[in-house]
Each structure stands twice: as C-alpha cells, then as structure tokens.
C-alpha cells in the first residue's frame, strides 16, 4: 500500500513541532517516545502499520482548534483517531503526521429526554451512549459489532451501522448535530437538538467522511425508546437461493424486521462448534429474522414470517419463546467472526453491498473465485440490506497467501460493483479499498468529491492518503476548460 511520501522538511523540524504542540497541550498530552506511540501504529486493519511522528491527546475543543491551526500553517499532516477499531485503515498514521487522539473527550454532556437527545464528546463509546440512558428505557439505535469499543466520533467519521440499520438507519440518520473544527482552526456547529439543519447539509457530508474534512469535537444524537418486545425466528434453507427469495418475500409483504441476518454453511458450522447455539447443520443457509416493537405487532408478524418461510421452502423454523432463547439464536451470529478465527490462522473481512436479488449469483461466483485463488471463504451478511461480509481464510505464514487473499477480496468487491452494488457498506474505504475506487467511480466523479475536500481543507493535510487513489492539489482540481459555446440546440424549445 503506497502512502504519500513523507515530507523530509517536516520530519527535520520534529523537535520544534513537538515544542509548539506542548505549548498547546501540556503535560502527558503529547507523546513522542517510540514505545509509547506503538499502540497508535495501527487500527483494526492490522496488516498495515506505521509509527506517527508524534501523538497529541487534546482535552478541549480550543486545543484541537489551536493544534489544527498550527499544523495548517506549518504544513503538517493530521490523522484523527477515536478508538482505532477501523477495519479499513482509516486511522493508520502517517510517518510525517501527527495522530490527534480524541480518547480524552469521553464525557456525556447532556441527556435530554424531553427532546430525546444525548449530547456527548466524540470519545464516548457507542455503547456508552446507550448505557447512559438504558435505565430510563432508551437506547441509541446504530449498533456496530464493535460498540463496546468504538467511539461516537469514529462512528460519525465512518457512518457506522449494525444489525438494526435496516429499520433504524445508519449513524447519518441518527445524528442531529455536531461541533467540529476545520483544518484552519475554525470551530463550526452544525445542527443541534432540532430535527434538521438548514443551509447545505454539511452534517450529512461530514458523516462518513472518514476524518478527511474536519475533527468532530461534540455530537448530539437521537435516542429511541426500547421496543416493548423482541422475538427472533431461526430459519434454515436448503440453498442460498431459497433463503434469498424468502428475504425478498418478507419485505414484499411490507415487513421491515429489526434485524435480518444470514450465514452460509461454513459460517454456520464454525459458529455452532464455537457457541453450541443449536443451529441446524444440514442446511446451506441460515436466516435470523428479529422482530421488535409493540407486543401485539411482534406476535402478529412472527406468524407472518413463519408462514412465508414455509412457503419459500424452509427446512427448519424455530421461534424464540424466551429472551434467553433469542439471545442464543444471536450468540452464534455475533460470535461468527471469532468462530471463523478458530478454524483459520488468519482471515480478511470484506464489506461490499449488493442489490439483494443478486445474492445467489454473487455467492456462486464467490465459490468459483474460491477455487481460482485456492482459499476458503465463509459468509455472514446483513441480508436485509444486502451488505456482505465474506471472510477469506488464509495463513499469513504461508508465502503468497496474504497476496492471494487480497486479490480474492478485490475480485469480490469488483463483482459487487458490477452487479449494481458498492465497494463498502459500513467499514469505509480507508487505505484498504482506496485503489479500488476507480472501479466504482469515473475520474470526473472522483475529482468532484476531492474538490469538496478543498472546501474544508485546501492544503490537503487532514488524513491524506485515505479514500482517494490519487492525491490532487486543489489548484489543479480548480482549473476549468469551457470553450465559448454556441447557443445550444437551435431546435430546443424556447419560450
């Protein structure tokens, strides 16, 4: 993975830079020792590692503003970091850049039940928000599997989602306001506790911008009342086609489940061996459909889903009769990644989205690719919204296997785009899928996106080398060539 060439003149000024940063963030907030910086050298995409030039851990928005302003003036690159759970290398440091860690921004600032909002600093964990309001029967809906660890600031940067997304949306649908700092040090507030912000929807653009546009220093999210009842159905199918058809039929019946997750045979077996959830082992696909809501509704819809499942050729149908049983159904799905980790020394977790009906085709093509690359693949996916997580199994100690796994992964993502889907559904582009962007977007599309970055960060200092396969200077992107035109289409109707 090629990263921007480190700027020797910046590296040469390291001592001076450290002093200047210490003047802004006193004491232990500036870390310079190699050993102490080790924890920051990678995020959850551990295949890539790089020590930063220095780590800065501010505690106030004012400090963030001063650090960014200084770096902007001095031409120093900045990589924001939350908990470092990114799976696409979004928080991977740069050799000549600082890591701006938001871990000390860990306070809940305001809980407002009347407006149904929580305002928190960006370093608060996703689960921390739910925990702060759970005793009153509320929760924060987007629930990435990493919710114990990942921060709400990181969730905004990645527009994270989870099992609940189908019904309750992603981060972007649940954030009402943020405070952020631009690279020039400007502090800007977008939105608040009201339902929509006015003017250009910059909050919408910030969400999912992977730390390239600004540093989030405060977040206001919407909280929801916990549903009265949750029940799940575990459905086994003889093929992925029948499973896929059943998913389509449930949606066609007007039912939007709280969660709808599918696993293929290798994933079912790995999970069952690991947690003994009682999954059927003779099926090709296993679907978990969870219904949540008012008790009467859930009971009514469970019946509908059972009926549809049988119509669509399910070979086994089990409905959870207790909260414990529902948790057992989920235990296997939730442990699917570590379970697969037990049957293979290493795996790569991919993350593409496809139109749901393409599922059988994509799974079949994956089987062919598996033979071609000589590697096994296990599949777990968010069936409701077509977000796939193929796990490619490999052994890093065997020469060539990592490369084969990466090639296999790239083939899968290109296929996702080919069938009308996208390269990433929730983990972000980061450095991982950066060079594949040309398969989804034209050069014109990509330049247009990069110009947007120029509005926020004209010098390109915030998290460069991520998301875009080619770095352009803003001046170069700004050029325009339009020849003097004729009045177009003389035959075009005019009034």
């Amino acid at each position, binding site marked *: 993975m090629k990263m921007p060439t480190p700027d020797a003149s910046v590296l040469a000024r390291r001592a001076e830079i450290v002093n200047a940063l210490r003047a802004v963030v006193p004491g232990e907030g500036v870390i310079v020792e190699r050993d102490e910086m080790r924890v920051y050298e990678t995020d959850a995409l551990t295949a890539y590692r790089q020590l930063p030039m220095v780590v800065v851990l501010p505690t106030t928005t004012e400090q963030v503003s001063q650090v960014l302003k200084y770096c902007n003036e001095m031409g120093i690159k900045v990589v924001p970091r939350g908990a470092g759970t990114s799976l696409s290398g979004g928080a991977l440091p740069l050799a000549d850049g600082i890591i701006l860690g938001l871990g000390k921004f860990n306070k809940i600032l305001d809980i407002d039940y009347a407006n149904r909002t929580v305002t928190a600093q960006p370093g608060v964990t996703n689960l921390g928000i739910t925990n702060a309001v759970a005793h009153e029967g509320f929760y924060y809906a987007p629930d990435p599997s990493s919710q114990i660890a990942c921060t709400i600031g990181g969730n905004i940067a990645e527009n994270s989602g989870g099992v609940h*997304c189908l019904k309750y949306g992603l981060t972007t*649908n649940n954030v009402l306001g943020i405070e952020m700092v631009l690279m020039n040090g400007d502090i800007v507030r977008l939105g*608040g506790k009201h339902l929509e912000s006015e003017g250009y929807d910059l909050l919408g*653009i910030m969400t999912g911008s992977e730390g390239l546009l600004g540093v989030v220093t405060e977040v206001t999210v919407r909280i929801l009342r916990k549903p009265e009842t949750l029940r799940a159905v575990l459905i086994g199918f003889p093929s992925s086609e029948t499973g896929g058809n059943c998913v389509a039929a449930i949606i066609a019946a007007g039912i939007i489940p709280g969660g709808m997750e599918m696993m293929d045979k290798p994933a079912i077996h790995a999970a069952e061996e690991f947690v003994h959830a009682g999954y059927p082992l003779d099926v090709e696909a296993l679907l978990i459909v969870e219904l949540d809501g008012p008790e009467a*509704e859930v009971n009514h819809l469970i019946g509908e889903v059972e009926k549809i499942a049988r119509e669509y050729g399910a070979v086994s149908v089990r409905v959870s009769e207790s909260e414990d049983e529902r948790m057992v159904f989920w235990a296997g799905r939730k442990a699917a990644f570590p379970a697969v980790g037990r049957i293979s020394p290493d795996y790569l977790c991919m993350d593409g989205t496809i139109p749901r009906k393409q599922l059988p085709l994509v799974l079949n093509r994956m089987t062919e690719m598996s033979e071609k690359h000589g590697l096994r693949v296990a599949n777990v996916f968010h069936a409701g919204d077509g977000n796939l997580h193929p796990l490619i199994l490999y052994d890093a100690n065997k020469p060539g296997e990592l490369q084969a796994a990466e090639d296999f992964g790239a083939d899968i993502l290109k296929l996702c785009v080919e069938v009308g889907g996208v390269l990433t559904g929730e983990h972000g582009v980061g450095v991982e899928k950066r060079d594949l962007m040309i398969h989804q977007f034209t050069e014109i599309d990509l330049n*247009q996106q990069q110009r*947007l970055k120029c*509005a926020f960060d004209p010098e390109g200092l915030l998290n460069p080398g991520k998301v875009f396969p080619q770095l352009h200077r803003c001046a170069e992107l700004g050029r325009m060539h339009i020849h003097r035109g004729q009045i177009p289409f003389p035959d075009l109707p005019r009034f």
Partner: protein
Amino acid sequence: MKTHLKPADADQALEAVRWAISEETPLELVGSGSKRALGRPFQATHTLDLAALTGVTLYEPEELVLSARAGTPLPELEALLAENRQQFAFEPTDFGPLLGGEAGRQTIGGVVSCNLAGPRRVKAGAVRDHFLGFQAISGRGEAFKAGGRVVKNVTGYDLPKLVAGAYGTLTVLTEVTLKVLPAPEDTRTVLVRALDDANAIRVMALALQSPYEVAGAAHVPASLAGGLGIEELGARESGGAATAIRLEGFGPSIEYRAGKLRDLLGGFGTVEFLEREPSLAFWAALRDVKPFVSQPERFVWRLSVPPADGARVVADLKGRLPGSDAYFDWGGGLIWLAVDPGAEAAGQHAVRGAIGLGGGSGGGHATLVRAPDTVRASVDVFHPQPAPLAALSARVKETLDPKRIFNPGRMYAGV
C-alpha cells in the same frame, strides 16, 4: 432576451449548461414551478426547465429502490408506488397551493432539491435520509454521479445529502435514486382535545417517548383547527384545539397501540380517534399547510426548533408579533407560523429572536416560506449563518458551481 431552455434529455441539459458557463450567464433551474416563490428572488436571464426529463428508469419493489429522471412528476411516482403498496416514507410536502399554485404538480428533482419532509419526519426521517444516489451536471459542465442504489453505502463522500436541500444551487439533477418503503396497511389518529400549547407539547413528548411507534405528533390550536377542513374536528368555535398522535402499521398492532396511548394520555383531556379516511385527510392538510392557504396575504414562516422548546418559542412570538398564529408538527419541533402582512420585515427579527433565546447547542432556524418577492428580496429568507459556516458554505458552492451559474443567490447572497 429571456430564454426558456427545455432540454429533452440529460445530454441536451449538459449542452445547455456548457453554453451558460461559456456565456457566464446564470440559469434558473425549474422543475414544475410549484416552489418557485420559495427562497430569495434572483435575476436569471435564462431558465433551464427540466420538466421534459421524465420517466422511471429503475423500480425494484423487493429491493425497496426507485430511480427516476428528475423532471418526473411526483404524483406519477406515488401512483406507481401505491400499485405495489409502497411509498416515499418522507411524505413530501406539497407547497403548490400555499404558494398560490396548483396541488400535485411538483417534480421529484424539486422535491429532493428542497428536502421538504412531512409529518412522518419524526419517525422516518427527511428526504435526505432516503436519497441514495444521483446523476447530475456540475457547474463545471461535467456530467457526474454520486452515491448508489443500495441502502448501505459508505463509499466516498455522501454527496446526495449535500444536494438534498440545496435548492438547485449546486448541480442540475438529471436522475435520482430513492429508497422506498412498504406503505402501512392501516392508519389511525389518537386525538386529545382542548389542550393549551404547553400541555400539548407534554402530551406529544410522552407519546414520542413511548414504545408505540408514533408516526406523527402535531398540535393545532383552536384558532386554526377549523382551517384544516376536517369535519370530525368540528366547527372552529366548538371544536377546540386538537393534539394528534398518528399510528400506522398492521391492523392488530394499531388497535393495541391506540389502546395503550389512550391509557397513557387520558389524564390530559378527552381522547378521541380519527379513523382511516379522516386521519389521512388530517395529516395531508397539516403537511400542506392548509390552514394558511386561505389567508394568502399573511407571511408564512417555517421554524425548526428543539421539540420541547416549541411552546415557549410560540408564546414568545405571540408577544412580539400580535395577531400571529402558529401550529406544531414533529412533536413541537416544527412550527408553522402566519404573521400579519403589516409586520415589519415579515417579522424576521421577532422570529429569529424567539429562536435564539434557547442558546447553547440546542439550535434552531427559521425560513420565510411565503412572502411577496419584494419582501423576500430584503429579508433573510434562510437563517443567517455564523461567519465560519457561511464561509464554508460559499466554498462548497465554489466546488460544484464555480461560475455561479445555478440559481445564484436563491439561498444566500453570493451563493
């Protein structure tokens, strides 16, 4: 000479834009004209009429996705969705009658460009939350695309969000892709009568805090309830205020939730129900601002505030603007306000002063939705922005439309 360009397809639209750029002459983008009187008036010698860019290009009900060319009339799309028992869950507002035109004429491009969502906003989100992708023409004379057609997509910047609500000042949309959702099987409204604003806000908050999946929470005071034209609400004099909680979904579920809500809210006043037909009519009238349609001389404002602040903001406004009337949607978070035509500068100082009282991170803003051109030319139609945010917005405009060809000045001067 004024020119009205009406391209037949996206290629012709691209040529028209390239010509305008080369002439450095601004274009007024128009869909059907339903919201032309919304925003700041501005001078454009040429109109780019997108009404001929019509037609559905992709509709897969089981995938919950629909793509259409930008000029396709909304009613056409809604009819198609209804055949498949689906809908746009954001419940688009129809501003036609409020702004002195006909109902049912808006185009999907205009709907997306204005991001105007109806009462279901509290549950389902705004247009921007359902806007998955687009094909467009930039002010650099280039055709480009952004987003996609799948719900879960974090590949690159979420440009659809930026373009939703940009009032045609950033790009010419030629095709849009939206997420659609199943239409509810049935609907019913729980009504609590005769509450004052403050108690109504409490009732709506209780309902929205409950687990009963409320799909609309509005309060119309006695002075405006009759203006909705719903027989079941009674005459203006006898009907009294209506605080309405909407339920949607499967029959047995509605029955159950309606009962639970009656128990929950009964202590505040008499509880009644509006069954399906009157309920549909009530929310449509509320959505399309019907109480103010028949009072064309009054200025109309749309305020977005933290819901719990609603009653306080309106009480403050009434003190500052005698003779004004207001009703609430979104649990108190959306205020529709009518101001007497005599008010100085359409009452902008009073309106913005009342919102500003809250302070802190609460926020809020107001848009002047209806006023004569001369008034809209002299007051801030959209909420003024703090300097760093205004500067950032101007830089964002620059990236997509550097020559300021598209609707210049419609939102803010110089943007």
